[in-house]
C-alpha cells in the first residue's frame, strides 16, 4: 500500500475508533439490553396536565416494550435541576446522579454545557436520530446559537405564535407596530410576561428583531459599545407600549400559562404561546372558548427547538437513552403533534420517513385553531445568547424598579 493510502486508512481507522470509543464500542443493542430493568428519573416542567398525561403514556409504552421504568419528576423551573446537578458535581458525585434525563433548552443547556454537566456526545447512537430534520430545522443543531454537538436530543419545535379572541378582535395586528396601534385603540387588553420569564424575553427579542434595522449584529456576540444604539428602537417601542398594556404595565403576568388564563377570562384579547397548537389543545380541554384562533406576524416569528439531555452522572444512562430514542420515534412524535393530546410540532423530517411512518402524521387532525405550516410563515432564528442577557438586564433596569 502506498504511503498516502496508509495515512488515509489510518486516519479513517482513528476517526472511526474515536467516535465509537466514546462509549466503549457500545452498540444500540447493548444499550437496550442494559437499559432493561433500569428506572429513569425524567425531570421536566410539570405545570401542564396534558403534557404530564403524554409523558405518562410514553412511560407506559417504554415499560412494556423495553422494561424501562420512567418516573416523571415534575419541576417548576428546570434551572433548579441544573443547580442540583451542579451541587452533585461539586460534592464529587460523578456516578449515580439523581437526574437521568431532563427537558431543557436555551440558556439552561448553555449553562450545563459550559460547566461540563452533560454526557459526552451520544445522540448519534439513537436509531431515530437519523430521522431528525437537521437540514431544514437548524435550531435542532444550534440551541440559541450554541452548537448542540449531539449532547442533547431534539424533542419538539416551538414557534412564537399569538392567540386572539375572534369574538372581540376582527383583524389581529400583523406586526409590532400594528400591535402598538391596536393597544392604542383597545387599551389594557394585551400584555406579556415579565422577563426573565422565557416567554417574556422571547417577545422582546421578537420586537427587537422586527424593529431593528441591523439584525446581523444580533447574530454575532454582544457589541457592548453599540448596544444602546442597536436596542434604541426597542426601548422607544416599549416606552410607548407599556402604559397601554393590561394593568397599565404596573403588573405583568408571571408566566405564559397565566396569560392563557387571562385570555380565557377575557381579561386580555391577545396572548402568546410557543406551541402552534396551544389554542386547539386548550379549546379541546375546555380551557379556552372556541372563538380563539392563532396568528403570526407577517415577517415571521422566532422559533426554536426544545431538547432532552442526559447529565454526565446519570445513574440510568442506558434507560434514559432508550426513553429519549422512543420519544424521537415517529409514533411518539405523531401522537405528540396531535392537538387533542398535546399539539407540539415534530422535529422529524417527513422526507426521511417511510410511507407508513408518514401516514401516522397525515392522520393527525390539524386542530381548529392551528395554522398550516405555510401560514406559520418564516421562522426567525434566535439571536446570540449574549444579547439575551444584556437585553434582560436593561429591561429590568428600565421597568422593574
Amino acid at each position, binding site marked *: 500500500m502506498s504511503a498516502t493510502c496508509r495515512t488515509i486508512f489510518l486516519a479513517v481507522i482513528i476517526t472511526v475508533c474515536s467516535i465509537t470509543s466514546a462509549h466503549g464500542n457500545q452498540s444500540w443493542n447493548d444499550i437496550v439490553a442494559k437499559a432493561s430493568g433500569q428506572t429513569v*428519573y425524567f*425531570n421536566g416542567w*410539570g*405545570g*401542564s*396536565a396534558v403534557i404530564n398525561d403524554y409523558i*405518562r403514556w410514553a412511560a407506559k409504552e417504554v415499560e412494556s416494550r423495553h422494561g424501562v421504568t420512567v418516573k416523571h*419528576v*415534575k*419541576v*417548576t*423551573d428546570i*434551572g*433548579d*435541576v*441544573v*443547580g*442540583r446537578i*451542579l*451541587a*452533585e*458535581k*461539586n*460534592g464529587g*458525585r460523578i456516578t449515580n446522579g*439523581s*437526574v437521568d434525563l431532563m427537558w431543557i433548552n*436555551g*440558556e439552561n443547556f448553555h*449553562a450545563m454545557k*459550559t*460547566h461540563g454537566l452533560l454526557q459526552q456526545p451520544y445522540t448519534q447512537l439513537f436509531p431515530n436520530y437519523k430521522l431528525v430534520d437537521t437540514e431544514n430545522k437548524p435550531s435542532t443543531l444550534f440551541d440559541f446559537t450554541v452548537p448542540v454537538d449531539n449532547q442533547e436530543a431534539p424533542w419538539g419545535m416551538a414557534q412564537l405564535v399569538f392567540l386572539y379572541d375572534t369574538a*372581540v378582535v376582527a383583524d389581529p395586528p400583523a406586526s409590532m407596530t400594528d400591535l402598538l396601534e391596536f393597544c392604542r385603540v383597545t*387599551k*389594557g387588553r394585551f400584555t406579556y410576561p*415579565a422577563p*426573565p420569564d422565557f416567554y417574556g424575553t422571547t417577545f422582546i427579542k421578537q420586537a427587537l428583531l422586527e424593529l431593528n434595522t441591523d439584525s446581523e449584529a444580533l447574530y454575532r456576540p454582544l457589541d457592548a459599545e453599540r448596544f444602546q444604539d442597536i436596542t434604541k428602537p426597542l426601548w422607544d417601542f416599549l416606552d410607548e407600549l407599556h402604559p397601554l398594556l393590561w*394593568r*397599565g404595565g*404596573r*403588573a*405583568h*403576568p*408571571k408566566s405564559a*400559562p*397565566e396569560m*392563557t388564563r*387571562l385570555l380565557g*377570562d*377575557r*381579561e386580555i384579547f391577545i396572548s402568546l404561546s410557543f406551541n402552534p397548537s396551544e389554542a386547539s389543545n*386548550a379549546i379541546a*380541554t*375546555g*380551557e379556552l372558548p372556541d372563538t380563539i384562533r392563532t396568528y403570526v406576524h407577517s415577517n415571521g416569528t422566532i422559533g426554536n427547538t426544545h431538547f432532552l439531555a442526559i447529565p454526565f452522572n446519570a445513574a440510568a444512562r442506558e434507560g434514559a437513552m432508550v426513553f429519549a430514542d422512543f420519544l424521537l420515534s415517529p409514533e411518539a412524535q405523531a401522537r405528540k403533534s396531535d392537538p387533542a393530546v398535546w399539539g407540539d410540532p415534530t422535529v422529524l423530517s417527513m422526507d426521511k420517513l417511510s410511507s407508513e411512518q408518514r401516514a401516522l402524521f397525515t392522520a393527525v387532525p390539524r386542530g381548529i385553531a392551528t395554522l398550516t405550516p405555510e401560514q406559520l410563515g418564516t421562522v426567525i432564528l434566535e439571536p446570540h445568547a449574549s444579547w439575551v*442577557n444584556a437585553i434582560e438586564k436593561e429591561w*429590568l433596569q428600565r*421597568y*422593574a*424598579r
Partner: protein
Amino acid sequence: MNISRPGKLKVFPYLTLTTFLLPILVGLIFTTIPAFGYLPAAGGSEFGFTPFLRLFSHPSLPAALRSTIFSGVTASIVSLTLALWIATALYGTRLWKLAEFSLAPLLSLPHAAFAIGFVFLITPSGWLLRAISPVPSGFTHPPDWITAGDPWAVALTLTMILKETPFLLLMVFSGLNRIDVKRTVWVGRSLGYHRLRIWTRLIIPQLYPMLRLPLLAVLAYSLSVVDLAYIIGPSLPPPLAVLIDRWFNDPDISNRLVGAAGAVFLFVITLACIALTMLAELAIKRAATDRMLNGKRKSPFESFIPGARFFAGGLLLINTLSLLVLLIWSFCGIWRFPDFLPSLYSLSNWLRHGEYMLEPLGVSVVAALLSCIISGILVVGCLENEQTLTQARLVSISQRSLWIIFVPLLIPQISFLFGIQVLLVTLHLDGTWFALVWIHLVFVLPYVFLTLANTYRAYDQRYSHVGTTLSSSRFKTFAGIKLPILLKPILFSAAVGFSVSIAQYLPTLYVGNGRFATITTETVNLAGGSDRRIIAVYALCQFILPLIAYLTAITVPFLMHRNRQLMRN
C-alpha cells in the same frame, strides 16, 4: 414526696438539640460561604464582596426590599392587633367557643391553596365581580383594575393577614390558659375598670411574653415567603424572597452567588426586624407603665371593641368563600366571565386525577405522620423533663438551650436550605426518607412545641402526685393519668405539626432531590400551569389532609371522654 431524679428524661433535650443544631449551623455556613464568592462549581473561587456588590447594584433591589418590608411588617402588626382585638371582644362569650371551633378548619387550609382561591375572589375576572356582572355593573369583559398582584403588595399583605391572624389567635387561646382571665377581669371590674382597659392593662401585658415567639415567627415567615408572593404578590419587581429563589434557579450559574448573597441579606433584614420588634416592646413597656397607672377607668375606644366581631366574621367569610370557589372550580367543565356559576359541570377533573394523586398523597401522609409522631414524642419528653427539673429545682444546660429549636422559624427557609442540600449531597443522604422526615422535623417540632407548651405547663401537677402515690410507678401515672388528661392538647398540637409538614414546599424540594413528590409540590407545580380546574382539585386535596388531622384531634378525645364532663373543656 419522693421526687425521683431526672435521669432518663435528660436524653430528650439532647436528642432534640442535635436534630437542630447541626442542620441550622451547616445550612447557614454553606449558604454564607458562596455569598462571599466561594462556589467552585459556579466558577467562584475567591472570597470577596462581588456577590454583594452585584446584589446591591441590581435595579430591582430597592423596590423588592420595600415591598418585602412593607408586607412583612404590616401583616405581622395587623395580625397581632386583630388577634388581640378579637380576644378582647369575644372572650367569655358564646362566640369565643365558636371561634375556637372554627380555628381548626381555618388553620388546615394551607396558605398557597387559600391564596389561589383568594386571587380568584378578587381579580377583576373573579367571583366577586362575576356576582355583579353584567348586572348591575355593566361589564361584559373584566375591567382593567389592579387587585391581585398590585405593585404596592397590598393584596399580598391582606392574604398574609387572613392566614396569620388565626394562627396568632390560636397562640392567644393557648396563652390565655396560663392566666386566670376570669378572675383578673373580676378584680379589674371591681376596681371600676371597663373591658378594654382591663385587657390592655392587665391581661395583654401578661399574655404578650407568650405571644412574642409566635409573633416573631410570623414576622420571619412574612418576610421570606416565596409561594404566596409568587401567587399574589407584585411582579414588577417581586419581593426579595422571590428574587432570591429566581437567582438560585437561574441558568446563569454565577447568579447563584448573588442568590446566596441575597439569602444572607434577607437573613440580616429578618434579624433587624426582630431586633426592632424587641426594642419596640421595651419602648412600649416603658412608655406604657406610667400611663397604665393613671387610674383612668374607661378608654375612649371602648365602643370600638365589638367591631372585632366584624373582622372575625370577615375572616371566616373570606376563608370560606376561597374554599368554596376552589370547590366549584374542581367540579367545573367550563366557566367563563361573567357567569356566576359554571356553564358546564364535570366530574372528570377528579376522576382523571384521582389515581395520579394517590402516590403524592401517600408520600405526604407518611412524611407528615412520621414527623408529627416523632416531634410529639420529643416535645412531650422535653416538657416532661422540664417539669421534673422545675420540681427538683434543678437547671440543665440542655433544657435551657431549647430555644434553639425555634431558630428555624426565625430564619428564612431559603437562607439555609441551600447549604443543607450541599451537605446532604456530599453525605449521599439526599433523596432518602431519612433526610426528608428529618428536614420536616426541623420545621414541625417548633410549631408542636409552641402549641403544646402552655397547656402542658398549665397541667395541675397534683393529679400526678396523687397518681404516683397510688400506683408507685411514674410511668404508669404518666401513661394512665397525665396523657389521657392532656390527650386533646397533645393531639391538637400533633395536628398542627401534621399540617405544617403537609404544607412544606421548599424543604421537600431541596432535600428530596426529585425523589419525593408530595401533594404540595404537585400543587405548586400545577399552580404554574393554566388549568384552574386541576389546580383546584390538588389544592383541595392539600386541604383535606390537615382537616382530617384536626378533626381526628378533636373527635378522638371527645369520644374517649364522652362521659366525662370535666374533660370536655
